[in-house]
């Protein structure tokens, strides 16, 4: 209060600043918890509700057990459903925004591809009819990604994005048809729902190793990873709901 405010007419010199009673801090939602799947090669750390002003958020850390260097850190926040202006819409509209917070390594065009891919997945998953005249905005902030020799591995980032968005939707309480999660096998990603009977997203990138494999085999391998990821996510959700009760 020592800085003189030149833009306003000041009160008397002996005026005291207005002090409010110290209010209770916002209730702590979603305790931090280290969850790691027993099987598989990844360790996953999940924490929900970090971003205070969003409707729902999730923080994911995925580390490879085999190679310490392979690591993806992603913060997802969901805003909405919030009223959208303009023409009447019977359904909510989704938008996905991806940003690299620290180092910008991924070309803009590829990020655009990832965003439309993710939007398409969640168009099929979110119960959009439930929220007419509204928009749901998803913001993905990639804090860190490294993968051995490469600067980044787009495939593991996409997989983490799918899982992160699902967790953020759960945190926001937005209706989704199922706990969607993605599985990765080499450079192929498949996002499943309904216990692996339905595919909501498939992404295959250049990879000589899996070129000869049939697509059904690839999907099957992705499904194993999907089931692990989903188990980890559900375990976390159950544990956090128990601890908050």
């Amino acid at each position: 209060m020592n800085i003189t405010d030149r833009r306003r007419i000041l009160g008397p010199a002996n005026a005291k600043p207005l002090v409010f009673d110290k209010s209770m801090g916002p209730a702590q939602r979603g305790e931090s918890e280290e969850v790691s799947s027993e099987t598989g090669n990844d360790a996953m750390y999940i924490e929900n509700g970090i971003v205070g002003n969003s409707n729902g958020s999730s923080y994911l850390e995925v580390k490879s057990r085999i190679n310490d260097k392979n690591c993806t850190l992603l913060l997802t926040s969901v805003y909405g459903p919030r009223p959208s202006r303009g023409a009447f819409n019977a359904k909510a509209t989704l938008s996905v925004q991806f940003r690299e917070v620290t180092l910008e390594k991924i070309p803009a065009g590829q990020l655009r591809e990832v965003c439309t891919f993710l939007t398409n997945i969640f168009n099929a998953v979110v119960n959009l009819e439930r929220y007419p005249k509204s928009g749901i905005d998803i913001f993905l902030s990639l804090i860190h990604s490294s993968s051995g020799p490469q600067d980044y591995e787009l495939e593991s980032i996409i997989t983490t994005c799918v899982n992160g968005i699902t967790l953020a939707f759960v945190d926001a309480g937005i209706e989704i048809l199922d706990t969607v999660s993605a599985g990765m096998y080499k450079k192929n990603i498949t996002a499943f729902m309904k216990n692996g009977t339905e595919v909501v997203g498939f992404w295959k990138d250049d990879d000589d190793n899996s070129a000869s494999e049939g697509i059904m085999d690839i999907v099957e391998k992705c499904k194993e990873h999907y089931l692990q990821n989903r188990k980890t996510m559900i375990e976390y959700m159950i544990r956090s709901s128990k601890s908050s009760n």
Partner: protein
Amino acid sequence: MVMSLTEKRYLQESLLSKPPVRPDGRNAEQFRPIEIFTDFLPTSNGSSKIVASDGTECVVSVKCKVVDHAIEKDLIVVDVDIAGRRDDSPLVQEISSILNRVLLLQTDQEQLRLTKKYSFKLYIDVLVLSSYSHPLTLISFAIYSALNCTQLPTLISSKDDLDVAELPTFHDYDMTELNIAVPIMFTLAICGQNVIVDPASSESDVASNGILVTWYNDKVAAPVRTIGLNEEYTRGINPQSLADSIQLIEALAPKVLGALDS
């Protein structure tokens, strides 16, 4: 064309039936008629124009430039311009990113090598005059035919220019045909259990999902991925549909290439 809810519902149900009933009477694996004109721009090394029956039209020009390949690594650049859409709109950015990556990764850059120091750099400019459904299939067909009719100047200086530095010189009028394998891409729509090729705009509007399949060197290549054709009717699909669409392309692509080459 904007359809009412009832019209969409009717269309959706007819596409879900087995076999699918398509609004223009096509079979599931039938393309719409397309017309291709090549080599109509004398100032470009290769050019093509493709017109689909619904009025979708796409012009592709290929121009070359001699560059030092030690400095410029990417020897193929694709620039996409869709009339009525901004350069930074999602669709334009996505399509140009996919095309750039596919052409750079898949095509053999050795074919553009001129001497030990210099290479041709190909600038592929795509202009979509009007588009109604997802334009990627047509663009890739147009690029395929443009690259296949591309003529590059014939080199007359020596190929080894590392010891004696000299700029490449070309024959006054002789041209050499560019000979590279070009990937083509297909968009398929999935409606329930059915897979249909070359979806029209009305079909895209009610499809459960879309799949992009790339065909290169007589086999399905990367990228293969799901793409959104609409926002309203997007659903999860049976894993079998993925296999079905790949099978369909494996059967169809050789025929399509045959038609494009003829």
